[in-house]
């Protein structure tokens, strides 16, 4: 038996991003009804098709029931007690970064995402989203030279309405699920990416989502379109201040890859997870889905989920195009009273489609970590293949891990392979490393990052280092 106290100390995590930015915000009143939706749409000066999209989604949402099949337990959310639009007060039209409130720039600076010209990251273009609005997007001109569009979705609605109308809701229809319907009705901001035919995006694109208000939900919407033979790597990061109330985050991400296009979508999610007693923290209900529409197209999800009180998230791939490829690489770390129900769906529709699932769940404290995945082979998916590997690691003896793999095959000429394992960091392993001079904390962190290696190898380089550090930080604390 591992010494309980020392393990508890080690997994105790100081949350570095819990500060609140004191800034004047424009909030609308609490509650959700048609008028609120009209108000949001009006504030964003949206075209009629989008308002109709929202209102239709709202009607559907009203008829839907909150799902209860996930292995999660939480107090019922009062949807009338949430503010659906909150934005930092700024000048009407911002033409350059110089006009952005310095407090906002400072906030992102503190989060390690400098936005100003002098300090901005050199190899990554960033779209910074604060509560309901996008603050700034870097490297826009440079990207435009390649024909790449990278901006907030609100801007895209204004400047590229044709693309939005053509693709929005085509991967995740408004009626898809309860939280997707809610998002479709009230989504505020998020990122939009368009990579034209034949273009390899010259740098990684990234969005950083920051929740600042305690009583408003964040409902961002991201849409990425990769035209024929194009490719892009997109990174997403998230943090939030520490509040003792729960904040709702219900995002929708849609990816579309045409012939020979590839999209790599990586997330490091570090929302505030609540305290040791499980008070506060983000409720993260997210629908992420990619459509491999074209032949030989490829969509790859990689995620490192360390935050949120509750995570409900299944980044999925619809494999329509012949020989298209879907991938899902995931590390989910839960501690204290965190709960995560996460996994993926690989829906093989076209022939010779291929998917790979590698999921690593780490549970410490009293947390609950479940993998839930669906692999489906449709009638036309001849010669298609799936490989799934789901591993769980338990730290201490109070944490739990579950694996729920669902497999549906309507095509005998296809292959599905599933492997699962559960391990516990044993006292013998820790003693072995310690007896070689390696400190307890480092020993735990070495084993955890060893366990996650298959997934970290899939992350973009800067992100992999970041993820490794983040896990180490989560597992850091004073021993003895």
């Amino acid at each position, binding site marked *: 038996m591992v010494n309980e106290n020392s393990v508890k100390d080690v997994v105790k995590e100081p949350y570095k991003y819990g500060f609140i930015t004191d800034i004047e915000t424009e909030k609308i009143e609490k509650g959700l009804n048609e008028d609120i939706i009209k108000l949001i749409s009006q504030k964003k000066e949206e075209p009629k098709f989008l308002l109709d999209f929202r209102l239709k989604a709202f009607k559907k949402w009203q008829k839907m029931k909150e799902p209860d099949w996930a292995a999660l337990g939480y107090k019922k959310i009062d949807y009338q007690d949430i503010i659906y639009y909150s934005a930092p007060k700024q000048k009407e039209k911002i033409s350059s970064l110089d006009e952005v409130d310095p407090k906002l720039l400072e906030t992102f600076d503190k989060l390690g995402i400098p936005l100003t010209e002098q300090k901005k990251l050199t190899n990554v273009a960033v779209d910074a989203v604060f509560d309901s609005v996008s603050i700034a997007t870097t490297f826009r001109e440079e990207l435009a030279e390649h024909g790449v569009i990278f901006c907030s979705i609100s801007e895209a609605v204004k400047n590229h309405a044709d693309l939005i109308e053509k693709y929005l809701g085509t991967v995740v229809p408004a009626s898809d699920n309860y939280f997707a319907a809610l998002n479709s009705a009230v989504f505020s901001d998020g990122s939009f990416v368009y990579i034209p035919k034949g273009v390899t995006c010259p740098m990684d694109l990234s969005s950083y989502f920051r929740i600042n208000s305690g009583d408003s939900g964040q409902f961002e919407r991201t849409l990425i379109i990769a035209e024929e033979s194009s490719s892009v790597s997109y990174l997403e990061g998230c943090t939030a201040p520490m509040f003792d109330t729960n904040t709702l985050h219900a995002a929708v991400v849609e990816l579309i890859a045409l012939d020979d296009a590839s999209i790599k979508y990586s997330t490091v999610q570090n929302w505030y997870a609540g305290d040791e007693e499980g008070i506060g923290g983000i409720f993260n209900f997210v629908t992420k889905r990619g459509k491999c529409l074209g032949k030989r197209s490829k969509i790859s999800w990689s995620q490192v989920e360390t935050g949120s009180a509750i995570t409900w998230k299944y980044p999925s791939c619809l494999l329509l195009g012949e020989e298209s490829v879907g991938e899902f690489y995931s590390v989910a770390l839960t501690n204290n009273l965190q709960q995560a129900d996460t996994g993926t769906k690989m829906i093989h529709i076209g022939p010779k489609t291929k998917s790979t699932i590698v999921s690593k769940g780490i549970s410490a404290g009293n947390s609950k970590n479940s993998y839930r995945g669906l692999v489906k082979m449709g009638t036309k998916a001849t010669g298609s293949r799936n490989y799934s590997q789901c591993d769980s690691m338990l730290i201490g003896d109070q944490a739990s891990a579950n694996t729920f793999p669902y497999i549906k095959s309507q095509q005998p000429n296809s292959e599905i392979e599933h492997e699962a394992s559960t391990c516990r960091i044993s006292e013998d392993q820790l003693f072995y490393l310690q007896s*070689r*001079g*390696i400190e307890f904390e480092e020993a735990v962190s070495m084993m955890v990052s*060893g366990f*996650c290696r298959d997934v970290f190898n899939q992350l973009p380089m800067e992100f992999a280092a970041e993820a490794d550090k983040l896990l180490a930080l989560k597992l850091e604390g004073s021993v003895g």
Partner: protein
Amino acid sequence: MQSIMKESDPILEVENLSASTDNRPILKGVSLSVYPGEIHAIMGRNGCGKSTFSKIIAGHPSYNITDGDIKFLGENINSLEPEERSQSGIFLGFQYPIEIPGVSNLEFLRVSTNARRKFLNKEELDTFDFEELVKEKLEIVKMDHAFLSRSVNQGFSGGEKKRNEILQMALLEPKIAILDETDSGLDIDALRIVASGIKKISNAQTGIILITHYQRLLDEIKPNYVHVMSDGRIIKTGESDLALELEEKGYEWTDNFIKET
């Protein structure tokens, strides 16, 4: 023979050590001193407390010291963490080396070596310098470079695991090494490699405790002293011929000593 005057101070001094796990006494008053350059062998039946003795010296958290002292280079180390003992120069060669999936052997060896070097105020080695050092040490145990890129001990054969232990000993250059049944599960060739490795690493400044059942290791590495352990006590100490006698007469012969004491 214990009356021979020693010229230097002992590396390890165990005085009247008693220890238990889950309130069950395992060691019942063990005393043993190891001086620089000495090789000691501890023999005894399974379950007599030999392995426990080695784990307690290395600081295993499952055992409680109920009485007595462990002194290393004159300092009491009863309350030191296992990593502190390792850094200061105590090495335990495991009877069953532990597998650690996902952690690369090379990285593990480097972190471990650097922890010891840091303690010795030596410069820590980067990946490239460490490669050079480890290449040299691999020779000692005749291990292939390919072992370094695998996970720690994972999928290693019994013999490979033991050689990996001796490789660690070679890198850490301990003041004292306690080798717990390093010879078990080895074929004759592997035994020779391991034994010659141990001899190359040890010198006039280091001490070695070999825990073993068999004479064949002691044929390769001749001990200065042989201790027979039974029921948590050292019941007889002799020179290397004691091991031969034990091999000939079996442990039953030692039962008489218990009656005597």
